[in-house]
């Protein structure tokens, strides 16, 4: 059933949501990259200072945030391949919707392989007053 135009160009389908998600995940990854470049730079200053800062990456809360980071990277990377295929493959635009779901499926699959292992690493031996 046709609905009244709502004064927006956004179509609300997979094409739009993949675009929105690509932007959100991109911004999130960008800001992590800024922090990660700075924290890694500490190796050049002082080994002990680096160890202290990197220890926060092993805490439960940041450990969970890392799952979010990996999920964001998985989507952004796989959807990036989808974008390239849309741009360069003759049938890319025809299959963009199917490819979106393949992206989601692959991301979930790889995430499912990563998450249990990462959670085990984060929660197996919490620092007990070393």
């Amino acid at each position, binding site marked *: 059933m046709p609905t009244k135009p709502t004064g927006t160009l956004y179509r609300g389908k997979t094409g739009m949501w993949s675009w929105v998600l690509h*932007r959100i995940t*991109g*911004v999130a*990854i*960008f800001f992590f*990259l*800024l922090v990660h*470049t*700075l924290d*890694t*730079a500490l*190796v*050049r200053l*002082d*080994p*002990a200072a*680096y*160890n202290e800062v*990197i220890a926060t*990456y*092993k805490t439960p809360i940041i*450990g969970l945030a*890392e799952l979010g980071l*990996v999920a964001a*990277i998985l989507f952004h*990377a796989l959807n*990036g*391949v989808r*974008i*390239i295929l849309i*741009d*360069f493959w003759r049938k890319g635009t025809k299959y963009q919707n199917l490819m979106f779901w393949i992206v989601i499926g692959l991301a979930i699959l790889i995430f499912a392989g*990563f998450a249990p*292992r*990462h959670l085990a*690493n*984060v929660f*197996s*031996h919490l620092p007990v007053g070393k």
Partner: protein
Amino acid sequence: MVTIETPRSPRTRKSANREKWAWLFMRASGVVLIVLIFGHLFVNLFLGEGIKAIDFAFVAGKWANPFWQVWDTLMLWLALIHGTNGMRTLVNDYSEREGIRKFLNASLWTVCILLIVLGTLVTTTFDPCPDTSVVDALPQFCK
């Protein structure tokens, strides 16, 4: 606000290719970054004890090998330029005032260049066995 006087007039070639190169760079660097970042995540977060194993000794062990120095330096450059150019796209899309748009883009590229210089200095001048009072933090091969 840019108004296009005659939208159907043939496009002028003058410096029209810069955006095309940026567009192409996003795709080319994206493909390379998939390899570099997935490899990085696999080795650092999946193998062995993952995040729990990461400390100075772990990084020193990796960067004692030129292979990982090159890997990480290339990843640094590509990721920062790819990310900054992506942010530039968002800034161009959403900023409404020309002055703010220019300021944000200038800030983005300034941060990008500073971090590339900093990160490259770190990976290329890195010493896996520095003088430190905390000898425990050093990798085995230093002792």
